[in-house]
């Protein structure tokens, strides 16, 4: 069965950088997901997926466009004394974010 393009889930892609005093050890995606779910509530848990995250802290996150604003705001509160997320750019197409320095 083919789903019409207008009925498919639309995604937004968020490019970010994790600024940290120390290299991040552990499950970054799990911690970020837990943080977002804590703030937004499990009943409004957005569909998010960490597409890439390199050793320098550059990452690319995919979320559904309906919850894009909430996810972006929740990411801004993912900080503490020794790390934070800096949002670099967001787009509706992944191609416009990949390849940019």
């Amino acid at each position, binding site marked *: 069965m083919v789903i019409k393009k207008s009925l498919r889930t639309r995604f937004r892609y968020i490019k970010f950088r994790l*600024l*940290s*005093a120390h290299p991040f050890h552990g499950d970054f995606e799990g911690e970020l997901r837990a943080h977002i779910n804590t*703030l937004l509530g499990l009943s409004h848990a957005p569909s998010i997926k960490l597409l890439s995250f390199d050793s320098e802290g550059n990452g690319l996150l995919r979320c559904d466009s309906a919850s894009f*604003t*909430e996810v*972006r*705001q929740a990411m*801004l*509160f993912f*900080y*503490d*004394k*020794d*790390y*934070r997320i*800096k*949002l670099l750019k967001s787009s509706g197409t992944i191609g416009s974010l990949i390849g940019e320095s």
Partner: protein
Amino acid sequence: MGRFFDLHVNFDWKDFSLEGYSKVFYSNVIAGGNRYDPARINIARVGNQDKPLPQKYDLIHFAGFNVDSDRLALVREKGRAVEVCVSDIKDALYAGRIHQVRFFCDALRTYKVPFVFTSGASAIYEVKSPKEIAFIGEMLGFTQQAVLDSMSETASEILGDKGWL
């Protein structure tokens, strides 16, 4: 627009221009024994609603985002601005009191009280760029433009009153 100021940081932040600020201020919080310091931005921290407002201050901060309409009207009459601090918003968010912040921000809009968004950062990893603060303000019902204006135009007026611009 174009010049942004963070009127409340709690550490010596040197490379603020990397985040898009023209200048940041290590402010003096008037609470307890602290007095008005003409060389710094003075933020009157008001907690108990029964106490009167201080005589002299540049910005007023309502602790716990508790405020009544009379006080807001008084602040507006005096031509002062209210501080909305991002670090306090984070605390309220984690404490499950974000509704209190929203109520507070609704009251600011209803009574047309000037406000200034500040980061309240105590370390380099707590700072936020003006655009990031605008995203946070959007969560509280402000437009991004209103938040950016608060850090630009309203902050400029405060600095102009002190003769620093």
